[in-house]
């Protein structure tokens, strides 16, 4: 079936956009990539497609816009069912577990990571670092539980939690370098280290990952911009 009517509104640096692209690649769905020039400007299409948040990613399928990366990934999994593997497990309990851990990445892990990136003081950074490292240890435990000895959180194949967390690996590396620490360390999280390699090397992932150097550069500029905006004015 010709997928001429699938469009992704996104930006190259966004890990949330990356989730959508990985999911589409997993399903072998062709799509049109529309790069937004954020935050300088937002296209009319973006504003029309996501009037509530005005953010990327947005998946436009036919005339229908779908927003919020994890919701988009579930949508992709439900629409394109003919391909080899499904992103979410078929068992209801396992599905609940996958959603739980994806939500953990979203609501706990990512905000801590972000605080580490934009931490203004040494104290802020130290607190954020402790939170991020604790998060990786919790996720190492989750990996043990979900993977059942296989390569991915999803088992033999990349699943929902792999996509939720794996999309952050570029930023994890960049932020780690910035703090001069390996955030996903061999010492504390050996299984995650291995998983990260498997994930990054996967067919559906390796060609969409942003270049780490480019991301690092972008990260520095982003941090400066955010800190400037937060700084008290004289």
């Amino acid at each position: 079936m010709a997928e001429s009517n699938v469009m992704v509104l996104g930006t190259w640096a966004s890990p949330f956009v990356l989730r959508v692209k990985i999911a589409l690649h997993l399903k072998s769905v062709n799509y049109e990539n529309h790069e937004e020039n954020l935050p300088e400007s937002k296209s009319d299409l973006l504003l029309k497609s996501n009037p509530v948040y005005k953010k990327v990613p947005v998946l436009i399928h036919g005339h229908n816009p779908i927003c919020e990366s994890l919701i988009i990934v579930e949508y992709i999994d439900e629409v394109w069912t003919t391909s080899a593997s499904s992103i979410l497990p078929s068992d209801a309990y396992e599905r609940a577990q996958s959603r739980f851990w994806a939500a953990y990445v979203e609501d706990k892990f990512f905000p801590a990571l972000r605080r580490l990136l934009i931490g203004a003081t040494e104290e802020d950074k130290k607190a954020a670092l402790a939170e991020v490292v604790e998060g990786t240890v919790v996720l190492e435990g989750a990996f043990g539980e979900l993977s059942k000895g296989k390569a991915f959180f999803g088992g033999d194949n990349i699943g929902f939690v792999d996509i939720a967390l794996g999309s952050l690996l570029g930023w994890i590396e960049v932020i780690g370098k910035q703090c001069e620490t390996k955030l996903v360390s061999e010492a504390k999280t050996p299984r995650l280290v291995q998983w990260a390699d498997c994930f990054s090397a996967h067919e559906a992932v390796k060609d969409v990952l942003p270049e780490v150097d480019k991301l690092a550069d972008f990260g520095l500029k982003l941090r400066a911009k955010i800190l400037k905006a937060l700084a008290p004015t004289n």
Partner: protein
Amino acid sequence: MAEEVVLLDFWPSPFGMRSRIGLAEKGIKYEYKEEDLRNKSALLLQMNPVHKKIPVLIHNGKPVCESLIQVQYIDEVWHDKAPLLPSDPYQKATARFWADYVDKKIYDLGSRVWKTKGEEQATAKKEFIESLKLIEKELGDKPYFGGESLGYVDVAFIPFYSWFYAYEKCGNFSIEAECPKLIAWAKRCMQKESVAKSLPDQQKVYDFILQMKKHFGIE
């Protein structure tokens, strides 16, 4: 197979209410266990070690955490009665979007209304009303967010109706004056036994909020 369903909950929690409604809609018999959040039970800590929060749904000994995940689980396991999520993927995605909006906006902004005062509260009120108006727009002329029957977004959102009186008293404003269609929707939902049985009395919630304010030293 004998189904054993336990819900670890706390009576004023809008999140707990979601699961209560979900279970009631499906006609599932379950054991309700009230938690004292200042003295969390060993069972709660064992079943939700990551967040240590309620509600926790325990189905045949296995825990499901996070209220919206619980509602989806309930809908998927007991799928032959009262479907909450639409079967069409796009409609499903839309329902998930708005339930998520309730979590991201309604809950946080509402909390700020009762937790703050002065200028901070004025801003919180304004943003809270804006968020209510936006979701009211999404409801449109439908009887429920789910269309002709109670759906996922209705279940996600209606618990906050039990907190409206508290928000109004703390913020000194009327939600009905701002969002009459939303109040009409809420009253329609309250006609349903599953909802009426699951929501506490608004005055009771307000009294609880007053206690919380005292505890946090707010005003």
